[in-house]
């Protein structure tokens, strides 16, 4: 047992050493793209507490309904075969039965009993999930839905980001548990937070603060969607939750809080000038600069993310270029207009954006 722990520590040290050697690798690890990508969001493979708790009543009701299905279908098939009119039928009418109080009572009382069981199981789980008491150290996130992206605030940490929620993993040991509680709000229409392997969905309703929570136990990148139809690009309002080991999470927090490096090369400087002289800054925020727009995603640490456009494309040179050139080509109907930039201008702005890390 001790040996295993020792090996783990050794592995961690080697990893940390390698990370220090290579800034690129460090970046990848902070963005979480080294973790397993949980693309298949099977709700029967829950990786987090509320999703796991849901499985209890879910399995009860699935087995009960499967049982009823088998019994009634068998009965139906049997009746159709057994009481089919034979070709040798004499044309007489069968005995006319008008009903039977006892039988009818039986198929009223048995369903009532089944229903009572379901009601008890369901009510218990509703209470357990909705009335969760959080430990002091729980991470707090405020998630704001926009057409068609997610704005993410960490009030305890002073971090604002978009579309990718970073949380630390939790432990089953109550002493080490660290759940994440999430306040859900909307800036425009109704959206819905749904990361199937972590928790059931809860809507983001304007003029209202809804609450949900997650408590994942395995590091990984968990996929989710906006689950309430919210307009043209509802389908591309994707969400990723990156569950870090506690150490990696601290590293991510540190990276988010670190000052943004200043642009160096001439093309980066040219891009910065363009960025601040066009209307980019009306909607986007970059650190403490004059760019304090709130209508679009915060770009301060853009390069620490995996995707752009709320998951519509991976964050790489090609797609970033295409997005800056004409977002309407990448995500038609999205609220960022085509800025009518020349190709050379797009080159510089992309060069500048790539310094935001």
């Amino acid at each position: 047992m001790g040996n295993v722990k020792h090996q783990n520590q050794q592995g961690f040290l080697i990893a940390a050493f390698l990370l220090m050697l290579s800034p690129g690798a460090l970046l990848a690890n902070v963005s979480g793209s080294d973790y397993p990508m949980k693309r298949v969001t099977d709700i029967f493979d829950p990786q987090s507490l509320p999703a796991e708790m849901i499985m209890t009543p879910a399995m009860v009701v699935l087995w009960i309904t499967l049982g009823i299905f088998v019994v009634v279908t068998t009965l139906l098939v049997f009746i159709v075969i057994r009481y089919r009119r034979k070709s040798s039928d004499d044309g007489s009418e069968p005995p006319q039965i008008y009903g039977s109080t006892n039988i009818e009572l039986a198929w009223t009382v048995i369903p009532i009993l089944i229903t009572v069981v379901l009601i008890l199981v369901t009510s218990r789980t509703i209470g357990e999930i909705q009335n969760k008491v959080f430990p002091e150290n729980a991470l707090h996130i405020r998630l704001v839905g926009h057409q068609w992206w997610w704005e993410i605030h960490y009030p305890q940490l002073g971090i604002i980001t978009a579309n990718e929620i970073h949380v630390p993993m939790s432990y089953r040991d109550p002493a080490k548990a660290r759940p994440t509680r999430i306040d859900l709000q909307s800036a425009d229409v109704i959206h819905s937070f749904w990361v199937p392997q972590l928790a059931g969905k809860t809507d983001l309703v304007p003029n209202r603060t809804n609450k949900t929570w997650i408590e994942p136990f395995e590091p990984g990148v968990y996929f989710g969607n906006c689950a309430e139809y919210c307009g043209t690009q509802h389908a591309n309002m994707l969400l990723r939750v990156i569950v870090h080991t506690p150490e990696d999470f601290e590293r991510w927090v540190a990276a988010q809080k670190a000052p943004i490096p200043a642009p160096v090369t001439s093309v980066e400087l040219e891009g910065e000038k363009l960025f601040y002289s066009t209307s980019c800054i009306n909607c986007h925020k970059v650190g403490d600069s004059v760019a304090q727009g709130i209508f679009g995603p915060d770009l301060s640490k853009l390069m620490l993310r995996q995707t752009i456009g709320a998951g519509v494309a991976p964050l790489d040179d090609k797609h970033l270029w295409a997005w800056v050139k004409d977002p309407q080509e990448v995500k038609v109907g999205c609220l960022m207009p085509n800025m009518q930039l020349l190709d050379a201008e797009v080159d510089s702005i992309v060069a500048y954006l790539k310094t935001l890390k």
Partner: protein
Amino acid sequence: MATETSTVEKDYEFSAPQKVGHEKGSLTRIIQELVFTVDHKKLGLMYIGAGLIFFVVAGLMATMIRAQLFFPNNTFLEPAVFNRFFTMHGTAMVFLVGMPIIFGFANYLVPLMIGARDMAFPRLNAFGFWTFLFSGLLLYFSYLGGPGLYAAGSAPDVGWFAYSPLTSRAFSRGTSTDYWTLSLLMGGIASISTAINLIVTIVSYRCKGMTLGRMPLFVWLYLVVGFLVIIAVPPLTACQIMLMLDRYLGAAFFDTQAGGSAVLWQHFFWIFGHPEVYILILPGFAIASEVIPVFSRKPIFGYPIMVAATVMIAFLSLGVWAHHMFTVGMTSLGNTFFAISTMLIAIPTGIKIFNWLGTMYGGKIRLELPMMFCIGFLFQFLIAGLTGVILAVAPFTWQLSDSYFVVAHFHYVLIGGLLYTVFAGIYYWYPKAFGKMPNKKLGLLHFWLFTIGFHLTFAPQHVSGLLGMPRRIFTYEAGRGWEIWNQLSTIGVLIQIPGILFFVINLLYSYWKGKPAGDDPWDAWTLEWATTSPPADYNFAKLPEVKSRRPLWDLKHPDDPDWKYE
């Protein structure tokens, strides 16, 4: 004798002075008859016919939707076009297909079954039909008229339950949402007028001897549907008016940016929307409750408890609306209440399924077309009911809500449940309405193709829902595990389409080439089979008098009549 009479009539017709263009059978004459008629039978058939036409249009939209979802990242349809298609598909299927078809059956059959000469208010009846028809045309006209002043819009794209504030002017520019609102307002007026007519007819126009306890179950279920419509539709009408006030007169009922409530809309809509599900499915039960006994050759098992279960379902259905809202952030008490009330509905619904099975048990089941569709209905409605119980488990619905699992569930209810009984009803009463038997071979092709296609389309959607696929997305990334299920689903549609084609061909073919049906081809027991096929104007030469629930059984078996046992 018969030929003699017709010759006499012919002579008379030729000798009668006529206006040019008004000869019997001329187009002008046919249009005139359709437009001016107040006959419940003609209006009933027009309701069903219009509903079937809208069904084909809305079905083609669904086909486009399925084609777009065949591949991940498909670019067959623009997102805006896709969103309009699913909005129009849903709205049309509920308000322009479901509602007119159920009212069509009521119109045609209720007066015949209770031994009346027409509905209580024939002109109100015509008013209801035309209001409905123009509400549908108005909705589809949005494709042309929707762009409006702002060049934004075209057809509605807010989803069939149009959650605010997506419908406020900030997020829905142009006039498309107004077309949707006005169309539903008109449709609501039509539904309420028909429902009032139905209730008054059933309460006041029953023939001699037909006590409430002797009404066919069909009529009982429609009585309950009538009351449900009157209770459920006004909240819809109210919230449509409130939405109009929001959009044009600066009210702020639902406009969250002015302090309104987005959840308020959902309460209004689902207080209508959930009883609406039962408004649509109870007529399905009504048809099944007529067809299953006749083709099992036994009376309905447990008539009183069937009536009681129906009333119970209707009553409970008024108290479950927020199970559509388990994810809006209700308190745990609210969620528990609505989970419990929803589960309770399973009890009377279960009673109904068991009683239909009890009717078939010990009978001599004739596997004619109507019965085959009813057996399909029983199997599919069982699945739909059980997924309904699954969805009543609120925590599980936090996962399943707004996913493809829900899409699968309500298509099993509305297609597997309602549409199958509608097909059963059409094949069952086709000989009564047109005097010709539907073709069995074409009907069997329709049944098997449609059944295979239906299950192939909607069963996989349960799985994609369980794999986290949300509804109403026009595209999805590759690698989420959804491809195969969507592809199966689309292939299923390709099998359903020829099924529907055979149905339409059957309707037309049998009209001209079908075997003559006679008055009572199925050897049935209710009053509509006591008159001619098709029934003459005003239905009955002499109003009938009944002594039991199965007046024709009493006639055919004078030695062993029902009234001895009831």
